[in-house]
C-alpha cells in the first residue's frame, strides 16, 4: 500500500505545482495560434522560412503594447507527408485553445487536411500550397488561402516556353495530387499552345533512382523536361540527367523555388527555369519592411519564396482575433468578410477572398537560376541574350 499512498502525494504535489504555474501568468490573456509546415525533409527550407515568418508576425504583435492579447504560436511539422499532416491538423483542431492557424506548404498535405479543419471548425489560412482544389474542391468556410494557385503559373509557363521556340516535352510529375495537378494544367495549356508531349512519367514522392525513366526519355530526345513536383525529387532528377548525359532544358514549377534546390545541385542548377505566383518578396509593397524586420530578429534561415505569404496569413489571423476576440466561429466569420468589397492591406498588397476563401494573385514571376541565385527572368543574362538556355 505504501506505493499507493506515495502516488497520491506526488499527484497532489503535481496538481499544486500546476495551479501555481497558471496563476503566475501575466495580465494579458494568452491566446494560442497554430502554424503547420514541412520543418523536416527535402522541402524543410521552405517550411522553416514560413515558420520564421509566421513567428515574426507573432513576435511583432506581442511587442506591440496596443495588442489585447499575448499570442503563443503552436508550431507543428507535417514533413510534407499527407498522413503526418492530418495528424498535425487533428492535433491543432482537437486542441480547443487554438483559435486559428496558418497551414501547409505542400499541396498534397493541404488537400488532405481541409476535411479535418472543417470537422473541428478551425479557421485556417493556407500560406504556400498551390493546388486549386484546396479552396475550390470544397465549400468549407474554414479554409482560406493567401497565395495563388498552380493554374496561372502553368498557363504562363506553357506560353513562355513555347514562345522560346521549344517544341517537344517530357513530363515527370510526382503522383501526389500536387504533381498530378501540375501535370494536368501544364498539359492543358501546353497542348493549347501547340507544344508536343513525347513522354510522361508519374513517380513516387520519395523515389531515389530515376535512371530508368531518364534513360527512356533520353532515347526520345525531347527539348524540355518539365518536372511537376517539389525540391527533393527535382534535385535528384537534375543530377541524374547529368549522369546519363540527358541534354534537355530543365523546367520546373513553384515547388522547387527554394535555396535548397540550388544548394542541392550547385553548378548543375544553372539555367533551370521555374514559375511562381506573386512578385519576388523584395518587390512586394511591404517587402522591404518585412525583410528588414526578418533580418532584425536574426533568424538563421532565409524566409524563402513563401515567407511573405506565411507572414501575411498569420498577420491576418492576429488582426482578426484582435478585432473579434478569441473565438473560432467569430474569427472564421470575420475572415470570410474580407472580400473584394472590403479588402485588407498587407505586405503582399490587397488581400481579398472570393467565395471559396481564395485570394486572387494575378502576377506570375518567371525565374531562372543564374550563378546560384533565383533570378527574375527579365533581369537575367538569359533574357539579355548573354547566356543561352539548353538547345537555344
Amino acid at each position: 500500500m505504501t506505493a499507493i499512498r506515495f502516488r497520491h502525494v506526488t499527484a497532489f504535489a503535481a496538481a499544486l505545482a500546476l495551479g501555481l504555474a497558471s496563476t503566475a501568468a501575466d495580465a494579458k490573456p494568452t491566446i494560442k495560434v497554430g502554424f503547420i509546415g514541412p520543418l523536416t525533409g527535402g522541402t524543410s527550407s521552405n517550411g522553416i522560412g514560413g515558420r520564421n515568418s509566421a513567428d515574426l508576425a507573432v513576435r511583432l504583435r506581442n511587442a506591440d503594447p496596443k495588442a489585447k492579447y499575448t499570442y503563443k504560436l503552436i508550431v507543428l511539422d507535417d514533413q510534407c507527408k499527407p498522413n503526418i499532416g492530418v495528424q498535425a491538423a487533428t492535433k491543432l483542431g482537437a486542441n480547443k485553445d487554438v483559435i486559428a492557424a496558418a497551414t501547409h506548404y505542400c499541396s498534397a498535405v493541404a488537400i488532405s487536411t481541409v476535411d479535418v479543419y472543417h470537422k473541428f471548425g478551425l479557421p485556417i489560412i493556407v500560406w504556400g500550397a498551390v493546388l486549386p482544389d484546396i479552396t475550390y474542391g470544397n465549400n468549407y468556410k474554414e479554409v482560406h488561402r493567401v497565395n495563388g494557385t498552380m493554374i496561372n503559373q502553368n498557363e504562363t509557363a506553357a506560353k513562355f516556353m513555347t514562345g522560346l521556340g521549344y517544341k517537344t516535352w517530357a513530363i515527370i510529375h510526382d503522383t501526389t495530387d500536387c504533381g498530378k495537378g501540375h501535370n494536368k494544367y501544364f498539359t492543358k495549356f501546353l497542348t493549347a499552345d501547340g507544344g508536343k508531349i513525347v513522354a510522361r512519367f508519374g513517380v513516387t514522392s520519395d523515389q531515389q533512382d530515376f535512371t530508368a525513366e531518364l534513360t527512356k526519355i533520353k532515347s526520345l530526345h525531347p527539348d524540355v523536361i518539365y518536372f511537376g513536383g517539389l525540391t527533393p525529387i527535382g534535385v535528384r532528377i537534375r543530377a541524374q540527367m547529368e549522369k546519363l548525359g540527358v541534354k534537355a532544358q530543365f523546367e520546373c514549377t513553384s515547388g522547387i523555388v527554394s535555396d535548397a534546390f540550388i544548394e542541392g545541385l550547385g553548378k548543375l542548377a544553372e539555367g533551370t527555369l521555374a514559375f511562381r505566383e506573386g512578385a519576388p518578396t523584395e518587390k512586394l509593397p511591404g517587402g522591404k519592411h518585412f525583410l528588414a524586420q526578418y533580418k532584425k530578429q536574426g533568424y538563421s534561415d532565409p524566409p524563402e519564396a513563401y515567407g511573405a505569404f506565411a507572414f501575411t496569413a498569420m498577420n491576418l489571423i492576429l488582426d482578426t482575433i484582435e478585432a473579434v476576440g478569441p473565438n473560432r466561429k467569430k474569427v472564421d466569420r470575420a475572415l470570410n468578410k474580407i472580400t473584394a468589397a472590403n479588402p485588407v492591406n498587407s505586405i503582399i498588397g490587397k488581400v481579398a477572398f472570393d467565395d471559396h476563401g481564395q485570394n486572387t494573385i494575378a502576377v506570375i514571376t518567371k525565374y531562372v537560376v543564374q550563378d546560384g541565385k533565383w533570378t527574375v527572368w527579365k533581369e537575367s543574362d538569359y533574357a539579355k541574350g548573354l547566356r543561352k538556355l539548353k538547345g537555344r
Partner: protein
Amino acid sequence: MNRAGAVFASLLPGVGSAVAVTVYVILLLAVESQAAIAALLVAGVIAVLAAARFGGMARIGKSFAERRIAMNLVIVVAALAMIGFFYEDHFVLLLVATVIIYVIACLGLNLQFGYAGTLNFAGAAFFGVGCYTAAVLTKNTAMPDLLILVVGGVMAAVIGSLLILPVLRTRSHYSAVVTIAFALMFKIFLEVNDTLGGPQGLRVDGMNVLGWVFNDNIEIGENFEASFYLNYIVLGLVILALTFIVVRRLERSWVGLNLDAVRLDETAAACFGLNITRWKITAFMLGNFIVGLAGAFYAMMIGFIAPTNFTFSDSLNLIAIILLGGIGNPWGVVVATTVLIIVPEKLQVIEEYRFLLFGALVILILLFRPEGLLPRPLRTYLPGWQPK
C-alpha cells in the same frame, strides 16, 4: 477475521491500485506543464518500483486473481471514470482511442509472436490492409460499417495467407525476411499504385452504425456536448474486451498449450502428434485478422490514410510494444502501449526523439530484461481453480 473482513482485505490492494492508477493517468493526461508531466512520470516510476520492492505488486496481483469479477468491474468503472473526466476534450480522447486500437492490434501480433513464435515484421502492413479495405468499402459500397470492420480483418487474413507457404517452409531468419520483404513491398505498392490513392492517400468516411453518426459530437440538451471520439472509444472498448477475452481464453486452453509447444520445440511437439502447420496457420491467420480489424477501425476513426502510415518502422514499433510489455502477456501489451503512445505525446520534449528512444529502450530490454516489464506468468487454465 470474519468473512466480510477477508473479502475486504483481499479486495483492498486491487481496488486501491486501480483507483491510484486511474487518478494518476487522469492527472498525466490533464497536466500541461512539461515540468509537472516529468515530475508525474518520475513519481510513477518510483511508485511502481517501490510497490515492487515492498511486495505491493504481489498483493495487487493476488487480489486481482482472487476477485476476478469484482476486479473486472473495477477496471470498467475506472475506464469510464477516465473517459467521463475528459468527455469534451477531443485530443485526450483521440489519444485514448488510439491506445485502444493499438492494444487490439498488438494482441493480434502477440498471438503470432508471443504464443506461436512466428515473428511478424509486417504488422503495420496488415494493419494497413484493414485500413485500405475500410477506405475502399466506405467509398464504393453501402456495406454496414460494423461488417466492414470484420471484412477488414478477413482481408488482412486472406492477404496474409499468401505468405503462409513461405513462412511455414522457412525457419527463424528466413521467415523473418519473408515478412520484412512483404512489409516493404506493401508500402511501395501503395505508393506506386494510383487506384489506391498513391502517395496521396485516401479519405475514409467516419462510422455510422444504425444511423448513429460517429463523427458528430454527442449533444444532450442545450448545454451538454461531448466529443465525437467518445463514440469510437466506446465501440473500441467493446472490440477490445472481446478480443482480450478470446485471446485470454485461447491462451488458457489446449490451443494455447499447443502454440507454446510449437514455439518451444517443433520436433518434440511433432513427436506427440501436434500438427505444427495447423497451429502456425491458426495463429498467423487469427493474428492478422485481429490486426486488420483494428486497422479498419482506425481508418474510419482517423478519416485519412496514406502509405506512410504503414512503414517498416511502424511494424517495428508494434513489435517493440510487445517486447516491452512482456512477450505473451496481454496485460503487458496494455501497459506498454499506454506508455509508448501517451508519454511521447504528453512529454513534447521527447516527442521528436521517440523513435530513437523506442530503439534504445528495446535494446536495453533485450540486453537486460528480455522477459519485458510484465513477464508472462505460467498458464492458469481456470483462474481460481484448485486441485481437490
